[in-house]
């Protein structure tokens, strides 16, 4: 009601003013007539009427206020006035805007990433219903769970990423295929853009070869063909009919995949095999079913499965967790800490902002006092000051958004591995809203105290002071000192955090990977089942390829199932001859097949026994080399050489492998993870025909780049349909494995540096201000005999006290807060004394440096000038 009235009266504000004027004029005229009627003279009657009526202008003014829109007009005037002030003080304005832009920009950039990765719901139908659990499943498991969990899950499906080759283009291309079951599309609930997804009927052994492709694959390799449905493409030597194209932006939760085929069709042996848990499974809660209910159901199912299939399913523990939480689990702590860090940077920037406003408030005191004396209400004065601080904050925010857009591009380009699956990291409307809110909040919260104190003085008191020199503002200066101490404490916490990360990174970099990555290149190759179903064919190919590569001058070549640090492994339960273990209780070890002198090429030392040789082939007894971790964990105090082991799941006659050697440990997964027990056995002696993938590792005299085309030629001379496009040097792999840490460390160090700079600007400006405030005092001191050293001691002593308070609070903060980053540290305690001490020294140095210039200025105070000014 009031608002409508306000709006209407604003629309007819001129008419309103005329009405008011008219009725007040009438009132006065009637009043005059009243007095004349009582016999007063015309002139006296007018005077009397005006007296009765009071101040007509004031009454009109007050009436206008009642209409409400006066406030709007006032705000407009405040804004115009503020803008004029800024133009008149370009230096002040620039410093404030840059300070806030840095703070808000960093904040907005990290918020952008956080919003895209952690906050935005996953792009599936009702994503909150989706759950998954740690640990993979085999397809029989998925089918059993689906059959037994109907009261909690409405759908469930699974996917296993597998390389396939696509030979429709110029070079054979390795594509990332998803071997799926039909339930996967059902559980994610995203309809295809063209055609349809896999149906239950197709998803069976001997079903039709059908493929669903993703939008990028359709666009890049199928020419965005709208009539693609029903056409056939060749994948790993087999024709697949395209039945559907998924929409742009669709992806399965944890992998970047190009296309999807039925596991039953592409790999029926694996589909039927309960023992190999290689599929990621996703489940959809029925509406109204809680996570706890799903967990209880899964506990029952787990118990049943491990009872029915102890050899394969012992120790099952599927704990459903929300999918979003699961897929962002790895990035969550790092992103939270980075966001915390940018909030701290913003706080420090805001403290500078508040400090600058206070300083300006003091220098504008006279203006405020004059306005107050002329009847400006305190509310109006505070509002004027707040309007100005909000304008400044919004300008800073606008500049910050520009910075954030640029920074976000850099972050996405640096793309830490954990962010590879997150799409759409960009400044969107949510982010803009966030930045604007942050700016306004900054302007109001950090403008309020300065605005209040600027308008605080009693008029009479202030006027008396202002007629003399500007010695007021002691309240302002102590407020600013508190701000600066706070800034130092916050910067100290950030710097320590960055220091801890850097130290972790250095420690991690000095961890030996267990092999010599220099000049070693790996080329993953996947032999398609259509042409290499039998081990003998695989062995023939491998042997022929190695002999061709060995004939290249200077090249040492070998093969291994999975090279270190590529994030893959196959684990088997291992049975040791002469030791009994119940089915399902055998120790799990990593298993690798090798061919050629793998240990020699990688420079992995053989610490006991012998290396594998060419003689260890299909015509000779089965042998294996184990690593030191396995020797010490499974053969503690015993000599493993000559002992026999076999895979615990083997059916049929036992295939005992004799341990002939022990190799040095290799960090297979990452430098920060300890080496796990591992068994290396010859490819040629393996009976696992499904091990059709491997990496060729070649050591070259120097850079491998010019040899790569030759190596590819040799591969294609043997089989011209094999993709060999994923060439990666081991150095690069090592770098990739450190990428996330490098990313986190770099960013945090950057923010800490920013915090340090902002805090030192704060120290500098508050000390400069303090010196200028105390110029007269210093002048008097010098006049009565203090020398320059005393003055230096005075100023530096003040700075040192400030630094001591700030850094002391900072150390307390370090002990309170660095704990949260434990998960990001490597062999460094969150309260590492050396790091804290180093940070304190660094910060003390920076504070002293920031105070040096003001202190010099204080020393140069000329007592005569200072006193005459007084």
């Amino acid at each position: 009601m009031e608002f409508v009235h306000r709006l209407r009266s604003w629309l007819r504000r001129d008419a309103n003013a005329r009405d008011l004027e008219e009725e007040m004029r009438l009132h006065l005229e009637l009043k005059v007539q009243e007095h004349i009627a009582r016999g007063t003279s015309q002139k006296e009657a007018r005077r009397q009427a005006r007296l009765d009526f009071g101040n007509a202008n004031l009454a009109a003014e007050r009436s206008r206020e009642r209409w409400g829109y006066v406030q709007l007009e006032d705000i407009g005037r405040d804004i115009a006035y503020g803008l004029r002030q800024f133009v008149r003080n370009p230096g002040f304005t620039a410093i404030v805007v840059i300070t806030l832009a840095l703070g808000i920009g960093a904040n907005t950039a990290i918020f952008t990433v956080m919003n895209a990765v952690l906050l935005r719901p996953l792009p599936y139908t009702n994503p909150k219903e989706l759950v998954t659990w740690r640990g993979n499943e085999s397809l029989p498991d998925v089918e059993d769970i689906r059959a037994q969990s109907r009261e909690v899950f409405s759908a469930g499906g699974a996917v296993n990423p597998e390389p396939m080759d696509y030979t429709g283009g110029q070079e054979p291309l390795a594509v990332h295929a998803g071997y799926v079951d039909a339930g996967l599309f059902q559980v994610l609930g995203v309809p295809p853009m063209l055609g349809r997804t896999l149906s239950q009927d197709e998803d069976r052994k001997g079903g039709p070869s059908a493929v669903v492709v993703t939008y990028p694959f359709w666009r890049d390799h199928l020419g965005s063909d709208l009539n693609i449905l029903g056409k056939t493409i060749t994948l790993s030597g087999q024709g697949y009919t395209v039945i559907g194209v998924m929409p742009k932006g669709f992806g399965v939760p944890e992998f970047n995949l190009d296309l999807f085929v039925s596991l039953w069709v592409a790999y029926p042996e694996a589909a039927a095999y309960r023992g190999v848990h290689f599929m990621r499974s996703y489940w959809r809660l029925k509406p109204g079913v809680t996570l706890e209910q799903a967990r209880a159901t899964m506990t029952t199912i787990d118990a049943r499965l491990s009872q029915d299939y102890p050899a394969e399913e012992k120790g099952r523990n599927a704990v459903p967790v929300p999918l979003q939480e699961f897929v962002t689990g790895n990035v969550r702590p790092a992103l939270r800490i980075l966001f915390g860090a940018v909030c701290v940077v913003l706080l420090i920037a805001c403290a500078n902002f508040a400090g600058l406003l206070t300083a300006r408030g003091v220098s504008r005191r006279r203006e405020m006092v004059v306005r107050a004396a002329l009847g400006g209400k305190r509310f109006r004065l505070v509002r004027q000051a707040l309007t100005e601080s909000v304008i400044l904050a919004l300008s800073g925010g606008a500049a910050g958004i520009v910075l954030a857009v640029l920074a976000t591009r850099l972050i996405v380009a640096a793309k830490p591995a954990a962010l590879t699956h997150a799409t759409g990291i960009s400044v969107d409307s949510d982010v803009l809203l966030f930045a604007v809110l942050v700016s306004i909040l900054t302007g109001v919260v950090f403008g309020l105290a300065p605005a209040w104190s600027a308008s605080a003085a009693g008029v009479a008191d202030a006027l008396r002071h202002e007629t003399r020199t500007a010695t007021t503002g002691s309240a302002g200066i102590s407020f600013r000192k508190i701000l600066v101490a706070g800034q130092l404490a916050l910067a100290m916490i950030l710097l320590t955090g960055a220091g801890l990360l850097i130290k972790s990174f250095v420690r991690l970099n000095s961890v030996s990977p267990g092999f010599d990555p220099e000049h070693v290149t790996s080329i993953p190759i996947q032999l398609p089942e259509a042409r290499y179903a039998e081990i003998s064919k695989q062995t023939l190919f491998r042997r022929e390829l190695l002999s061709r590569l060995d004939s290249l001058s200077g090249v040492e070549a070998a093969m291994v199932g999975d090279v270190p640090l590529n994030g893959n492994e196959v684990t088997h339960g291992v049975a040791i001859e002469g030791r009994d273990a119940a089915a399902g209780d055998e120790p799990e070890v990593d298993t690798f097949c090798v061919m050629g002198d793998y240990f020699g090429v990688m420079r992995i030392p053989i610490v006991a026994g012998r290396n594998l040789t060419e003689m260890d082939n299909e015509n000779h007894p089965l042998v294996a080399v184990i690593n030191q971790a396995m020797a010490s964990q499974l053969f503690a105090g015993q000599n493993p050489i000559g002992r026999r082991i076999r895979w615990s799941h083997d059916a049929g006659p036992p295939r005992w492998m004799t341990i002939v050697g022990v190799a040095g440990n290799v960090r297979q997964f990452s430098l920060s993870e300890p080496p796990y027990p591992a068994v290396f056995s010859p490819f040629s002696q393996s009976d696992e025909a499904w091990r059709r993938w491997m990496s060729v590792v070649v050591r070259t005299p120097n850079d491998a780049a010019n040899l790569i085309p030759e190596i590819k030629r040799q591969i294609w001379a043997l089989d011209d349909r094999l993709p060999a496009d994923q060439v990666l040097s081991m150095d690069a792999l090592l770098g990739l494995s450190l990428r996330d840490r490098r990313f986190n460390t770099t960013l945090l160090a950057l923010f800490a540096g920013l915090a340090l700079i902002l805090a030192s600007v704060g120290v500098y400006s508050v000390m400069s201000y303090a010196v200028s405030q105390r110029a007269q005092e210093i002048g008097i001191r010098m006049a009565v005999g203090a020398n320059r050293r005393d003055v230096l001691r005075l100023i530096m002593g003040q700075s040192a006290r400030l630094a001591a308070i700030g850094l002391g609070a900072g150390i307390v903060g370090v002990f309170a807060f660095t704990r949260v980053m434990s998960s990001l540290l490597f062999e460094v305690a969150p309260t590492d004394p050396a790091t804290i001490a180093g940070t304190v020294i660094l910060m003390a140095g920076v504070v002293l440096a920031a105070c040096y210039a003001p202190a010099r200025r204080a020393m140069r105070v000329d007592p005569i000038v200072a006193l005459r000014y007084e």
Partner: protein
Amino acid sequence: MESSKPLLPGTLDLLLLKALSLEPMHGYGIAQRLRQISGDVFQIEEGTLYPALQKLLAKGWVVGEWKQTENNRRARFYKLITAGRKQLRAECVEFEKVFGAIVRVIEA
């Protein structure tokens, strides 16, 4: 707002509403009426009626109508409407409560 007036603070609205509850009036008329009824006790700067009247308009308690006065002058007559009558009742109750309390305290 105009605390220098010998009027109990916050009572101006009440007086205006009461005056208008008898008949629609223009500003001058209201001033006359208040003086007459109160027996010249209230010393109101008559200009201050106008901001107060604007507030009543803004609150939606009264409406303004331009009409001819008995002397054929054009004037804005303020007329109490339902919301205003309700407000008047509420303020009367409130005033009597406060006033009664003050009286009790004084006479105690």
